[in-house]
């Protein structure tokens, strides 16, 4: 469904992504791994259109993503989380999630101001869908809390929930478990595993926690210095010499 073809991205003289090609298949969890500074988040920022690559093509279901502004990426069905959580911190948790559903409402300012039927219907739907995702993530109890006052672990969950509630076809997760406790990490791994079936979407997971990545994904793409150095099933990656040298060797 998502295809990167020969993508290169430079900042000044620094090459963040180098002639990178890979594909994310439908309905699966694909992991993108690599050491710190390998260019993982840059790739994610290319897909969500925060960065425009100098070379290459990015297509999603045959559509050229590079023709779209960042605010229209969610409309084609791609939602993302943020590595350092970028919540709407003055808003409640449930409002953060409602914003994840808002792109689907056609109600404009006028409809919203006068609570015309479609605005009322959207508010109802948004609330219900937000509650479903809150329940999935087991955070209903903090629904009305101001998100900026939450612990980091809870903020990570809200960040994930906000992307999930948009009903994406492809969910981009940028280190969803980074900086959280071991207990939450393990719990998150089982939750992420459930996402494709329960929400009918593919997942692109970035993380450098090998245990998390190899445990939940069906396909792994390994990058280093912006280039792909390996690709395969988790079992193949475990045995790949170049991966072990570039990545596992240092980590373990």
């Amino acid at each position: 469904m998502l295809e990167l073809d020969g993508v290169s991205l430079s900042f000044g003289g620094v090459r963040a992504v180098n002639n990178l090609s890979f594909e994310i298949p439908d309905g699966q969890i694909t992991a993108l791994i690599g050491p710190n500074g390998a260019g993982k988040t840059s790739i994610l920022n290319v897909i969500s259109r925060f960065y425009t690559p100098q070379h290459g093509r990015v297509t999603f279901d045959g559509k050229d993503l590079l023709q779209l502004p960042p605010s229209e990426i969610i409309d084609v069905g791609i939602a993302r989380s943020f590595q350092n959580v970028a919540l709407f911190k003055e808003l409640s948790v449930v409002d953060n999630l409602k914003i994840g559903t808002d792109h689907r409402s056609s109600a404009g300012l006028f409809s919203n101001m006068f609570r015309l039927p479609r605005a009322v219907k959207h508010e109802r739907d948004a609330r219900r869908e937000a509650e479903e995702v809150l329940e999935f993530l087991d955070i209903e109890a903090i629904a009305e809390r101001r998100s900026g006052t939450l612990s980091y672990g809870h903020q990570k969950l809200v960040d994930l929930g906000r992307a999930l509630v948009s009903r994406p076809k492809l969910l981009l997760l940028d280190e969803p478990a980074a900086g959280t406790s071991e207990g939450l990490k393990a719990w998150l791994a089982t939750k992420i595993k459930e996402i494709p079936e329960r929400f009918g979407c593919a997942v692109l997971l970035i993380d450098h926690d090998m245990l998390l990545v190899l445990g939940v994904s069906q396909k792994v793409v390994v990058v280093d210095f912006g280039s792909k150095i390996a690709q395969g099933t988790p079992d193949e990656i475990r045995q790949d010499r170049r991966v072990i040298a570039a990545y596992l060797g240092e980590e373990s």
Partner: protein
Amino acid sequence: MMPNSVSRLRKGHMARRGGLAVGFLAFALAPVFVGSNVTTMGILTEAVIYALVVVSLNLLVGFAGLVSIGQAGFLAVGAYAAGYSANHLHLALPLELLLSGILAGLVGFILGLPSGRLRGHYLVIITLGFGLAVPQIALEATDITNGFTGLSISNTQFGPIVMNSPRAMYYFAFVVVAISMMLILLVLASKSGRAIMAVRDSEAAALAMGIPVARTKVIVFTLSAFFCGIAGDLFAHFEGLVTPADFTLALSLFFLAAVIVGGLGSVGGSIVGALVLVYVQTRSASVGGYSEFIIGAAVVVVLMLFPEGLASIPALLGRKLHLTRGVGELPGPDAAEPGEVSSVIAGADPGDHQGGVNA
């Protein structure tokens, strides 16, 4: 544990709604108690009109994070539209109010166009220039504004009702302001309102959630100017005379002070802020030139006591009385392993989330 905390939060909602209802009733019934006092009715009418201006300014400064110090400019556009209509067009009152709002909204739209790309200081300068330019233009465009002399409005009439008493004028302003505030609250509690606040909190996340950031900023400028224009219309009817000297930089700063005293991002706070500052202004008028000094001192005192404005008092009281729980003792996925919660907090530094784009 969970249903308990949910009901507590619902209580918070109820309290806020209750506060609005009490405020509404207090303003609606005020003339019953002080209606015979012409001066008090005048002060109250001014406070009600200014409350709408302050709420409209809070849309920009508090809800959207766009600092404007030219709000008196929008007030002037609405006031002159009212004056022109009363003298030349003779529109029915609701139509005239709508026209004032739309004209000011149009000006806000144009002023908002560069705001999508400008931030911080640049936006402050643009709104400052606008606020200073409007009275100058009013002085020069004598065909429309009657220049230095200004436009007078002799009688305010809606159908058979003539608003020739302070009490009638108060109720006229009160009804228009109450309807305007209700519409603003409905917008804020909708997709449109969430988009405005989302852009303020994180532009990167707003974009990723499909919110067109630049367009949202233009919309909030238009909305703010629209309601300020309606307040300007009321202002013209209340004063009975509109002159360029009414719309000074000091007035714009007065509105901004009321926003901050009331609390950024709080409609109720803005109403209280307007009420408090109008009261301080009238009380200090008797000491001549020191009025502005006293207002400034009042602002400093309030902010020293309540850095987040008067709107934060209920929450502070609630915390004092242990009605709300502190951070870190919440249930959630970690609840199964109580020991984990504290390490979640200690696990990483949330750092500065602004921007959110990382290479």
